[in-house]
């Protein structure tokens, strides 16, 4: 290939690169604009710029949350975030002397900032009743299963448990003088052939 042809090829390549570059930048601009639109749609979240690469939507779960807990009496946010007109005027009144507020107004102010009072948050549930009921129910079910097993699963008890057998067994043990000092045979009166009183 001669020099002129080589040069021509090079310029063609450069043109192609330029075309690709312009298309890419146009796409990127569109993309960022779309992203910013998505970010603006959510009212309660804020937009933060991340290192100049575009905007990142901050989700609700990442923001400070309200929760009632004994160990954290003053949460990071108020409970009621959007105040009605009445509440707004009450908040204005709060800036003045608190002695002029009625009890209802004070309670209303409390309820704006907090969801449950300490008494309400510490209130016990009646869950323990369900727990005990569940326990008894399952113990009962198990009892039924055991009874069924005894009737339908287990075979007969060995003959060694019959009373006749047991009598013979005890007699044999006494004849053998099992534990004659302090144990079994020691409690049998061999003269009178009865258990010692």
């Amino acid at each position, binding site marked *: 290939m001669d020099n002129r042809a080589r040069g021509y090829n090079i310029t063609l390549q450069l043109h192609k690169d330029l075309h690709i570059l312009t298309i890419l930048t146009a796409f990127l601009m569109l993309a960022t604009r779309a992203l910013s639109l998505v970010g603006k749609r959510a009212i309660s979240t804020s937009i933060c710029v991340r290192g100049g690469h575009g905007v990142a939507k901050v989700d609700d779960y990442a923001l400070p949350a309200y929760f009632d807990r004994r160990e*954290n009496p*003053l949460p990071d946010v108020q409970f009621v975030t959007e105040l009605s007109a009445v509440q707004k005027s009450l908040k204005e009144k709060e800036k003045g002397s*608190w002695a*002029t507020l009625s*009890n209802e107004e004070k309670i209303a102010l409390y309820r*704006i*900032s*907090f969801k449950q009072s300490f008494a309400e948050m510490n*209130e016990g549930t009646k869950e323990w009743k369900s727990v005990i009921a569940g326990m008894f129910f399952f113990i009962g079910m198990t009892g039924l299963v055991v009874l069924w097993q005894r009737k339908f699963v287990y075979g007969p008890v060995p003959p060694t448990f019959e009373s006749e057998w047991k009598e013979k067994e005890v007699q044999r043990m006494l004849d053998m003088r099992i534990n004659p000092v302090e144990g079994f045979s020691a409690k049998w009166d061999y003269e009178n052939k009865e258990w010692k009183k």
Partner: protein
Amino acid sequence: MFRPVVRLSTSGVRSLTRTRQCYSAPLASRCYSHAKVETDEEFDARWVTYFSKPDIDAWELKKGDLLKNIENTSASFYEGMNTLIGYDLVPEPKILDSALRACRRLNDLASAIRILEAVKDKSGPHKDIYPYLIQELQPTLIELGISTPEDLGMDIL
């Protein structure tokens, strides 16, 4: 017969003395930390100063994080009510007085009532602490117009 016994006994004695020398335990030297222990008065003073800051903001009033430099016992402005409640104590009336006044500066009555509730909850089974605190705080409560949770009927369900 005697000599090996003597030999054994001397070597035994020598080893005994040797071990006794090495084994002498050092006198009890405790390794307590070198941080200064804060007295109750210093603790109270620190917290009163903290809440007395004239331009205290809502976050500082609430503050939950434990950004505390233990060796720095001067007022460290990175604590707040949540941290105070986290301690194993019921705050003194003067600290609460300071905190309630901070609420007043922030125009936050709800937080003031909440603080009283929290302190009552904090005393746990010791039912006589809270009435004492209220009695001590009565002048402040009247001055600022703060109602106790009992006045508002919030202590019952």
